[in-house]
């Protein structure tokens, strides 16, 4: 899929990246004003990864996501009003106020869930891939995780199972350079995390994670491989989160200069330059406006919804 020269995909990629950015800026603002509680893990600066990856997926395909999962959720097609309602602790939220940001899921669009446990979704993705295989389906599972996940046992066990069983899973590492405050240079000895793929006998590739086209190309190749029954691939997307790990982060472990350098590589600004000829200034501005309006409408709808009610609190502990 040509995200640069083809106006349809270009617009979709730009609009979705802006939607993620505006959604998270709004969340940041609501939180700062005391209107949203809990904690938030923002993916501002990383928008090209979920957008590039999810454009390589079809209806019926699955994803598993992370605690920094707003972007994955939006890119996979979730409704903004139900997402915002969940974050605002409303009854109309995706999880009826029981999940919040870290557990948001939209099963209808194939999003099997964000996960508060680092690497928790990796073996689950393998299992979803196994279900597809056993049913003889053509669906693919994309498992998103960060650089912090690759030293968890769950990551190794999940990747290995997918590899030995040739499961249709694409492992997408969002290497944003820090596992909370632990820099990648202190967390592993390999130069690139994609080298880890060799240990499991699967292909591994590192791409510019601030370029949705590069992410898309790598994930689309991996998806084609998976659909052909050739098994999993590890795609490492190099990116950066502008904001802290969560709302309590004082950013003591990285410099202002480093953050500034990465802000200059803003995936959205870069993409706008590259699609300037394809879309034109008016259309680019229209994408920005549309994203802002979609997020505003979601906040309005969520604010008008009833709060999650404690009356039904014990209802969904067990399925009937």
């Amino acid at each position, binding site marked *: 899929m040509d995200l640069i020269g083809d106006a349809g995909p270009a617009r979709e990629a730009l609009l979705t990246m802006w939607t993620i950015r505006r959604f998270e800026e709004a969340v940041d603002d609501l939180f700062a004003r005391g209107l949203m509680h809990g904690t938030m893990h923002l993916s501002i600066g990383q928008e090209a990864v979920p957008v590039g990856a999810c454009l390589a997926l079809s209806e019926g395909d699955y994803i598993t996501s992370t605690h920094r999962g707003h972007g994955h959720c939006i890119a996979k097609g979730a409704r903004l009003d139900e997402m915002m309602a969940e974050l605002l602790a409303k009854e109309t939220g995706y999880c009826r106020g029981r999940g919040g940001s870290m557990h948001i899921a939209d099963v209808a669009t194939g999003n099997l*869930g964000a996960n508060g446990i680092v690497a928790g979704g990796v073996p*689950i993705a*393998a*299992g979803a891939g196994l279900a*597809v295989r056993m049913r003889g389906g053509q669906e693919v599972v994309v498992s998103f995780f960060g650089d912090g996940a690759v030293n968890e046992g769950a990551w190794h*066990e999940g990747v290995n199972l997918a590899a030995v069983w040739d499961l249709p899973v694409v492992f997408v590492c969002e290497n944003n350079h820090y596992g909370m405050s632990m820099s990648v240079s202190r967390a592993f000895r390999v130069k690139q995390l994609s080298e880890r793929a060799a240990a499991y006998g699967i292909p591994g590739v590192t791409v510019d994670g601030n370029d949705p086209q590069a992410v898309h190309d790598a994930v689309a190749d991996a998806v084609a491989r998976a659909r052909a029954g050739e098994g999993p691939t590890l795609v490492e997307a190099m990116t950066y989160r502008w904001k802290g790990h969560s709302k309590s982060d004082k950013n003591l472990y990285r410099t202002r200069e480093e953050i500034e350098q990465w802000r200059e590589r803003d995936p959205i600004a870069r993409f706008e330059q590259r699609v300037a000829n394809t879309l034109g200034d008016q259309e680019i501005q229209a994408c920005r406006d549309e994203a802002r309006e979609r997020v505003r409408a979601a906040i309005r709808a969520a604010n008008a919804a009833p709060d999650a009610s404690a009356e039904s609190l014990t209802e969904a502990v067990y*399925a009937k």
Partner: protein
Amino acid sequence: MTAVAEQTRTLTYAEAVREALAQAMTADERVFLLGEDVGTYGGAFGVTGDLVHRFGEERIRDTPISELGIVGAAVGAALAGMRPVVEIQFSDFTAQAMDQIVNQAAKIHFMLGGAATVPMVLRAPTGSGTGAAAQHSQSLEAWFAHVPGLKVVMPATPADAKTLLLAAIEDPNPVIVLEHKLLYKQSGPVPEAATPARLGEAAVRRTGADLTIVATGVMVSRALEAAEQLATDGVEASVIDPRTLKPLDAQPIVDDVIRTGRALLVQEAPKTAGFMAEIAATIGESPAFGHLRAPIARLCGLDVPIPYAPQLERAAVPQAGDIVRAAADLVRRW
């Protein structure tokens, strides 16, 4: 009673489990097994036997040694519409998989506000008595019973091993089935039909006037053996087997204690914070409290890891003779 008696045959507990698995897989394409050595090897305790020849390697799926990965894969497969049954070779190894059991399987339905279910079963051989020592002999039911979102089953007879497993497979929730490894070779009548039991229904195994013994797992047969001995001395004991710890069917226990006025609670697991503490509290919170003629008594495993030496291993957990003594003491003193 006009109901036709159920057709039964004598099977071992292990054969009963295997029959339940085979019938569930025949009835439902979505059911499949995964675990270490469940295929050609036939399972570490021989439970899966020749199922791989009947159902093939796709559905009787041998896994690498990778407990967390196996349970995680079951969670994902269940979320995506399958009905996985995991065998963890020894229940002790669930420790390796605890994140997927506790933080994923147990919580997903609730965290998603009911939008998804995780219909999976985790079977695990449990308990002591084989000389396998501290890392292969534990009774961990209280760990699982403590986690909202899990159901916990402890079959004590071959019939229950079959019918409770069928119920677990049919249940839309994650269910932990703890099979006692000393029971695998025990025989008993097992119904031929694939009719599941109901989770949350205790079994009154024996009724007596003098005290109520509540026991789980392998302690059920020891309690029944003790009750026979006690009867020769004129002490009549009820023996109640909760069968499922979660959901717990407390009413038959409460009713029986109201009648007998005495409760002896027997478990193999160590005493501290064990499941019988829950039963004791449940009796204490119930109308049975006013009928107690004696303090509630617990007879449990010692608070020690399970040792290797056979005489030490026996001393670490209640034996039938210990139950006789504890029951006689309770009746004599009160």
